[in-house]
């Protein structure tokens, strides 16, 4: 792989990202612009942006790497990432948009009328966001290392700096355009090499029986539930993973913030349908890389599996064609890190800004500050913790780490949102208890994994894929505690239900005269 071509391509992505970010800067003026693009982004733009933001290092590099090593069971990752949006669509999309809140802590505070629940949510947003940012930085380091041989710290630092500049400069409005652009770039970067390979093989004699990697003896990895790659209890792990991905998506902080940019509940639903089409198209390609990798890059199965997408074009087409395709793929990978990290940074910064920083800044400067500056400082802070964590942790499987972030989200925000939206007898104490129990259990499992947990048997399966027990635990906690504390059901629950579920066309009292914009 030629470093010059790839570096040029990565440079172009960075320039385009900052360029579109600057274009956004001219129309970002007020704080609400920064957070939710003033809610005037059209469904098609928004769907591209949601997909662009969602397809992270885990999807672009990690899925192919995991399938390459562990085989067919890992195909559930891309299935789960997609079905997560179906669950989000049917359970929370429209009500969440109608809630009138623009961050998860806002939703929790207005629904449960409690500053305490709000603070727990704020902490969880920062925690899940950090857990999700970590693999993005690892992916960036890995990509730059594969392309140029530079140490991983360099790539991670590049992504961290660009994301902070971009978010601080333009906020949400500019990243809407950035991310819509990045979805199409990522799809092209992944799809084009596959098509080129197929066309090349049509014109010449089929060089290797690629599909043989999937068949017959020696193809044990291609069978589901095969424990290839040394993962025990595959049936449990499959169900637990599926549960985490299907119900974790709705609880990811950057996904939720994106939904507030829809003009109304109906648009939120329609946007989600478009997102499902875009994601389904994208996920057709990573498994192709894994199958090709079995034939053309078998050495990566042992180590460096996450680089298979980057390595493959150069190995199949030595020479200029391989260089160009490799550069395209590297550019797509960088688009993946930049877009997901930007979205996460906006979400985390929004929470740090509102819940930690603004009131303190107000006190320290005796009111002499501009709200937008508080957001900019928050953007910087929200990248510092994941970067430190990146420096401290060793190599992790990209898709596995992201899977843990999903598991924490499925065990905390999923019960909060699903029961909060559909169950009128949920009490504030129940909400707090569920968040704490689910959050502690799932975070503990995630932490054990990041630090280095048990290697085999049930302990490894239960800690490696915790959602199957942490998520039901959180749901049961909420339900039992709510039943025990009926006097703690929020007084405004009936009004909240009206706000969450009535279509905008019906003229009723929604309890909030206008969305709770705190500043401006």
């Amino acid at each position: 792989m030629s470093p010059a071509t790839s570096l040029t391509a990565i440079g172009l992505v960075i320039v385009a990202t900052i360029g579109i970010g600057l274009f956004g800067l001219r129309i970002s003026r007020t704080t609400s612009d920064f957070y939710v693009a003033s809610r005037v982004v059209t469904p098609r733009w928004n769907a591209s942006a949601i997909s662009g933001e969602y397809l992270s290092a885990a999807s672009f590099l990690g899925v192919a790497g995991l399938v390459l090593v562990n085989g067919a069971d890992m195909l559930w990752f891309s299935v789960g990432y997609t079905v997560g949006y179906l669950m989000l669509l049917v359970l929370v999309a429209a009500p969440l948009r109608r809630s009138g809140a623009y961050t998860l802590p806002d939703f929790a505070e207005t629904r449960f009328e409690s500053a305490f629940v709000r603070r727990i949510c704020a902490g969880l947003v920062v925690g899940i966001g950090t857990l999700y940012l970590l693999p993005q930085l690892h992916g960036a380091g890995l990509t730059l290392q594969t392309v140029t041989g530079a140490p991983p710290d360099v790539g991670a630092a590049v992504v961290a700096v660009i994301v902070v500049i971009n978010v601080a400069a333009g906020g949400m409005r500019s990243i809407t355009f950035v991310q819509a652009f990045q979805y199409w770039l990522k799809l092209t970067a992944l799809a084009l090499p596959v098509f080129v390979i197929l066309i090349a093989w049509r014109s010449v004699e089929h060089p290797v029986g690629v599909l043989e990697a999937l068949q017959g003896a020696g193809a044990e990895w291609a069978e589901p539930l095969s424990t290839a790659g040394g993962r025990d209890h595959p049936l449990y792990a499959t169900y637990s993973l599926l549960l985490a991905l299907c119900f974790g998506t709705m609880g990811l902080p950057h996904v939720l913030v994106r939904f507030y940019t829809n003009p109304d509940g109906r648009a939120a639903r329609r946007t989600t349908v478009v997102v499902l089409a875009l994601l389904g198209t994208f996920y057709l390609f990573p498994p192709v890389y894994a199958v090709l990798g079995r034939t053309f890059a078998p050495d990566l199965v042992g180590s460096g599996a996450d680089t298979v997408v980057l390595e493959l074009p150069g190995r199949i087409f030595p020479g200029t064609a391989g260089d160009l395709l490799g550069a395209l793929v590297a550019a797509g990978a960088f688009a993946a890190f930049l877009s997901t990290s930007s979205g996460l940074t906006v979400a985390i910064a929004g929470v740090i800004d509102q819940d930690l920083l603004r009131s303190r800044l107000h006190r320290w400067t005796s009111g002499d500050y501009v709200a937008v500056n508080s957001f900019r400082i928050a953007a910087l802070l929200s990248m510092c913790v994941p970067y430190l964590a990146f420096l401290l942790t060793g190599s992790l499987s990209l898709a596995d780490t992201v899977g843990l972030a999903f598991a924490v989200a499925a065990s905390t925000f999923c019960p909060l949102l699903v029961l909060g939206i559909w169950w009128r007898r949920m009490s504030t104490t129940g909400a707090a208890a569920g968040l704490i129990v689910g959050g502690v259990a799932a975070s503990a499992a995630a932490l054990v994994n990041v630090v280095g947990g048990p290697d085999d048997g049930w302990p490894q399966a239960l800690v490696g894929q915790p959602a199957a027990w942490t998520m039901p635990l959180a749901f049961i906690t909420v339900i039992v505690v709510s039943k025990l504390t009926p006097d703690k059901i929020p007084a405004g629950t009936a009004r909240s239900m009206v706000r969450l579920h009535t279509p905008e066309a019906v003229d009723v009292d929604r309890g909030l005269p206008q969305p709770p914009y705190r500043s401006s």
Partner: protein
Amino acid sequence: MSTPEGPRRVRVTSPRTSAARRPITPTGTREIDEQTRLGEVYMHSLIQSQLRLALAVIGGATVLLGGIPLLFALVPATRTLDVLGVPLPWVILGVAVYPVVYVAARVYVRNAERIEAEFTEFVGRQ
């Protein structure tokens, strides 16, 4: 325009017109606003219909998706079944699920919007 000959028309009005005028706001939304028993029934029925629809989609997904690992576990032959040179699990998980999920989403949205349209018409018309 020529008017035919005959007695002039006399407009007959009731002195109580204004008293009998119906309120401008539809009563359905007022019931909801004032949180009467009837208003609660309206909201309850809306939420229940939407919840039933959501649970139907989730139930379908659970049976279809959740059944796949079970199928592979219970009928080992399906793990290697050949479909045009590609094993069945790769066909299902790599390709076939996505259009199914998309169609499910389309059907869901159509039904959810129908429920909302009926609700809007019902409470707006009372």
